[in-house]
């Protein structure tokens, strides 16, 4: 696959939409890797006992998934910053859709700014964010 160059991107470009894996096995793998092995993330029944509708994807996993999607779009970019707002939980075993759009391009610094969103199966925004990425 051809690598995206800074010269190819334009304001308004959309990143490819991605449906990342937030199945229970993958979330457990993440929680183990991150050291956040808490029942509200890894056990639907125990999450319900805590008042949640189901187990939820950790916020830091949503953020890390967004970063991985940025790397899938601009393979050589450096993420200088990423800010995510957790508006509502993402259920484990759901099928959220991750989207991104280029909102600013700064040629002198080879910087692009992105708006990021994660929507649920009903099309409701669950997580939104911004990122600043630098191209080589």
């Amino acid at each position, binding site marked *: 696959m051809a690598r995206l160059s800074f010269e190819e991107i334009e304001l308004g470009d959309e990143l490819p939409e991605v449906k990342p894996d937030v199945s229970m096995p993958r979330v457990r793998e993440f929680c*183990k890797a991150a050291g956040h092995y808490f029942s509200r993330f890894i056990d639907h029944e125990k999450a319900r006992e805590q008042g949640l509708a189901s187990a939820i994807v950790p916020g830091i996993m949503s953020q890390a998934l967004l970063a991985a999607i940025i790397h899938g779009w601009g393979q050589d970019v450096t993420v200088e*910053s*990423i800010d995510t707002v957790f508006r509502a939980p993402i259920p484990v075993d759901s099928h959220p859709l991750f989207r991104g759009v280029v909102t600013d391009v700064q040629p002198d610094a080879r910087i692009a700014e992105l708006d990021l969103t994660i929507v649920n199966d009903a099309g409701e925004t669950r997580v939104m964010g911004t990122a600043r990425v630098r191209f080589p």
Partner: protein
Amino acid sequence: MQVAGIKKEWVGLEFDTAEFEVTEADIVSFSRAVGETDPRFLDPAHPDFQAPPTFSSRFVSRRVLPEAFPHIGSRGFDAGKAVTCHGPVRAGHRLVAHSKIADVYEKTGRSGPMVFIVHRMDFTNQDGELLSTVDWRMVRQPDLK
């Protein structure tokens, strides 16, 4: 509850320091779990092997809030995280995280008033280089009367 008073008293106060070791295995397992495909995050033999940008978000301090911080409410949630990457986090780094309250502010939502508390962790390596800043926005909702 006076947010202005809390802000004046607590913002900028450093209240915790914690250390974290970064290993190759930690970086690879984190990267795999979030679907990174770039070898710079997966292959320890890569010349630029490093942790993904949000890796430091996994670390938590020993205290969420300073001792004696005012009780605002029992209800709360994680409103978001912002990560600023100043340099790559690499295997072998011994990170030192300094925690402070970076901001306190109030908003009103559909569920009533909310107080946002921003817990900032600045991560430096063993050479004192600042590598990452993580701002964790916590929301506290005043208890119902």
